[in-house]
């Protein structure tokens, strides 16, 4: 696996060499690429070795040089079961779907229950736009094999690996549950009104506003040891409604996250086990904004900055990372 921030010409040359690629960048550049073995999605933000940066003239390209085969497609919102049906016997799947799309909503709710989802790594991210053009530009995904582009589909790249290769998919979440009351929801979804806080029926929006709670910090749930965030999109005390960037799940205990004291140190800690530059990563635009990651390195992790991340399921304010390693020859 090789990562690089490239010009259109350099990316086109890689495609011409029949490389298998996962590409991120501005729509104008993605539309100009030739057909080939790639999928892509829009973003204007990247993590590089020099730190986070916004670029309109570069594409972030990950070449899967370990791959022995690949196939790609854009799945419609009602065809997400194809994600696990079309994969190879040994390998992994990369996905990208547009922010604000029906497909994203559908995958967030139904994806966790896809048969066999957890049998093979599913890594990916949510395509976005420049923050100054939210509501004007539309996030897009691309299937390089056909040249198709979509504002409401899930682009999937199924990668086959040799038996000697092992894939590792994990997350780096800097947030942990705080000491506050437990929060549970009677119904799942991207929107919430009433919930139980410390077991007491409460309107979440008014609770947040009355207490001046910092909604740049997410809700966090403990998923059998994995800390999973749900980030706040809007809080409207007047209507009593809260909208999230990922769905809350009924039967799950959430708590407001405690603050992160030192982002630099936390990312550095996360890279101690290996070279982050050899992994494909994506980090959340909310971390980029709230933690001020522009111009600041993130422990060597490189990749697109995105409107949501996937490590099997949809994640918020989380760094997702994928690596491939080979067993040593006997």
């Amino acid at each position, binding site marked *: 696996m090789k990562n690089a921030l490239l010009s259109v010409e350099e990316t086109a040359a890689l495609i011409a060499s029949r490389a298998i690629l996962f590409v991120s960048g501005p729509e104008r550049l993605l539309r100009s690429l030739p057909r080939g073995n790639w999928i892509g999605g829009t973003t204007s933000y990247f993590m590089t070795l020099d730190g986070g940066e916004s670029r309109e003239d570069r594409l972030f390209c990950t070449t899967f040089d370990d791959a022995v085969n690949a196939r790609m497609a854009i799945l419609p919102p009602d065809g997400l079961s194809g994600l696990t049906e079309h994969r190879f016997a040994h390998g992994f799947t990369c996905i990208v779907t547009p922010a604000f799309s029906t497909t994203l909503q559908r995958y967030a709710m139904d994806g*966790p*229950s896809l048969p066999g989802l*957890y*049998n093979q*790594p599913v890594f990916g991210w949510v395509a976005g736009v420049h923050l100054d053009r939210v509501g004007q530009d539309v996030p897009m995904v691309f299937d390089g094999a056909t040249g198709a582009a979509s504002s409401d589909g899930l682009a999937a790249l199924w990668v086959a690996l040799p038996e000697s290769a*092992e894939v590792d*998919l*994990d*997350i780096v979440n800097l947030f942990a549950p705080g000491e506050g009351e437990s929060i549970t929801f009677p119904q799942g979804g991207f929107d919430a009104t009433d919930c139980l806080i410390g077991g007491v029926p409460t309107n979440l929006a008014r609770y947040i506003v009355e207490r001046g709670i910092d909604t740049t910090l997410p809700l966090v749930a403990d*998923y*059998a*040891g*994995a800390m999973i965030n749900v980030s706040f999109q809007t809080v409207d005390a007047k209507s009593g409604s809260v909208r999230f960037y990922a769905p809350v*799940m*009924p*039967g*799950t205990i959430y708590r407001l996250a405690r603050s992160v004291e030192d982002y630099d140190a936390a990312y550095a800690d996360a890279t101690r086990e290996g070279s982050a530059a050899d992994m494909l990563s994506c980090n959340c635009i909310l971390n980029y904004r709230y933690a001020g990651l522009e111009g600041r390195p993130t422990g060597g992790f490189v990749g697109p900055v995105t409107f949501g991340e996937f*490590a*099997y*399921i949809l994640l918020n304010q989380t760094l997702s990372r994928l690596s491939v390693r080979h067993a040593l020859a006997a």
Partner: protein
Amino acid sequence: MTDYPGNYDTRVERLSADRLDSALHEGGALPSVDHQLWTRLLTGEINPNIKTLATRLIITRLRIDVAKDRTVLPRAAQELRRFFTDNKFAHRDLTAITGF
């Protein structure tokens, strides 16, 4: 004497890593689908130290299903057991799970 841990732990410890993988592939070295281990795991009665992200997520997804409707417990146990027989990468979590 409790039902668990019992003979199962001893049997696993005697197997080499390769034989364990082979036995698990056949489903032979795992507790049967109606063993109380699965119930305790899927109701949150036990919380072993799981390392693998996929294992953490499937256990949580099945726990949510079971919390909503207890009658799906047998199907959830079957799905989780199948996950371990099908996926060698998850075998490193079995030591933690069977240590209770």
